[in-house]
């Protein structure tokens, strides 16, 4: 399968066979991501890392992934450090960066920024999160984590918990999961439920998610509990945030009726959604999930930038 120079902006850019190809390649990357093997498949290439919003895991794992493949990284961390602060448009910034690099990784606060960047750049653009929009590389590492833990994605019973309105990871993830015939339960306070247009999109693909505000409704049948942080920074009104902050908290007591092989995932950072006592249980998979960002992003960079493994 040829991914060379392909943009990765949203779930619309991927079908099931392409997702499976990336997940298989990610598995091959694991020993290289751990540093147990070395392959400079992208030696001499340069990736531009443009993060116009704060990020720890996504940014570091992309940079780690690039370096593990022998790829150099140039980066911008804050809008205030760029000509955007002087009034330059994103389109012009991308045209300039396009001339300095072989691929562009972009995180931006505005939805659709990565699609615009892909239009004006003739180098491939990888969306590392655009506002409350898409986050396709997070989706791929989430699928990889589930598949590694469960052996398959087909038919899993998956509960998405927390901020399903503003959380971009769950929007992209839910749409990808429809390709694998999963049973989906959406657990959120009514004010933070999944937007209707995304639910309609899930239904049009044959997935009829169960909506509930009660975590107990979902936990005993779930194979995967995917917990998200209620993101204070996405709320236009702070009082609305206070009403729903701390609604769900996963601890050992709530997990006592869960399946033995339930896995708990979280895109991190967590605040208090998952008690630290869960970290040492067989259910906890979120730190493994964070590590998986490296092999999955290695696979993405390698496939898109034409690396040979």
């Amino acid at each position, binding site marked *: 399968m040829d991914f060379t120079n392909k943009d990765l902006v*949203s779930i*619309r850019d991927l079908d099931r066979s392409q997702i499976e190809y990336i997940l298989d390649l990610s598995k091959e990357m694991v020993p290289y991501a751990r540093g147990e093997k070395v392959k400079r498949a992208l030696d001499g290439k340069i990736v531009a890392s443009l993060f116009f919003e704060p990020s720890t895991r996504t940014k570091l794992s992309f940079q780690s992934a690039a370096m593990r493949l022998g790829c150099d990284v140039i980066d911008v961390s804050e809008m205030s450090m760029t000509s955007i602060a002087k009034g330059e*448009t*994103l*389109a012009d910034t991308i045209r300039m960066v396009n001339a300095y690099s072989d691929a562009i990784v972009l995180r*931006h*606060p*505005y*939805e*659709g*920024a990565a*699609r*615009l960047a892909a*239009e004006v750049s003739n180098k491939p653009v990888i969306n590392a999160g*655009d*506002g*409350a*929009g*898409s986050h396709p590389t997070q989706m791929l590492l989430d699928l990889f984590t589930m598949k590694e833990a469960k052996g398959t994605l087909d038919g899993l019973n998956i509960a998405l918990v927390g901020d399903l309105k503003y959380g971009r990871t769950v929007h992209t993830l839910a749409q990808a999961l429809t390709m694998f015939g999963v049973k989906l339960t959406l657990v959120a306070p009514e004010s933070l439920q999944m937007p209707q*247009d995304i639910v309609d999109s899930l239904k049009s693909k044959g997935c009829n998610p169960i909506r509930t505000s009660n975590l107990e409704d979902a936990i005993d049948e779930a194979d995967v509990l995917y917990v998200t942080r209620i993101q204070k920074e996405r709320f236009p009104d702070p009082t609305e945030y206070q009403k729903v902050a701390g609604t769900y908290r996963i601890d050992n007591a709530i997990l006592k009726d869960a399946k033995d092989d339930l896995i708990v995932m979280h895109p991190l950072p967590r605040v208090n959604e998952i008690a630290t006592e869960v970290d040492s249980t067989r259910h906890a998979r979120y730190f493994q999930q964070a590590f998986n960002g490296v092999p999955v992003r290695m696979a993405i960079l390698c496939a898109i930038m034409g690396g040979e493994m």
Partner: protein
Amino acid sequence: MTQAPQVEDIKIPPIRNGTVIDHITDRQARSVLKILGVNENNVDSTISIGIHVSTTKEGMKWKDIVKLEDMELDHIAVSKIALIAPLATISIIRDYYVAEKFDVKLADTVVGLVKCSNPNCITNKGEPVTPKFFVEERCPAKLRCVYCDRILMNISDNLI
């Protein structure tokens, strides 16, 4: 013997030459003119508008109707009307006779006619980009922003 004119034809007199846009969704006639870029300042002929006219067409109880004298609209121009009036029909009139008649139909994409209703979409942030939408459904029109992937809410409120 000539058939007696229908009641609605009496309300809006027939035109000798021009275009009749019929079966416009109720109270969307002005938006149709806005989409077409037609107004009293840029045409030198009569524009007749009927608003809230009763109709027997299936699926409609009320309709709007627009008659543009001495103007013939082409298929591409009128296809845009389907954004807000998917059941509209177009008749090109020459010397009081219907010379051509066709339905409106949206293309697969809509470019530069409406803006995205998502305030956080990059197309609303001063970038040099023309709003573009995929047409997901045609009747009524359902548009998805090419950039932010959101469904456009309230098409007539977001006409450019």
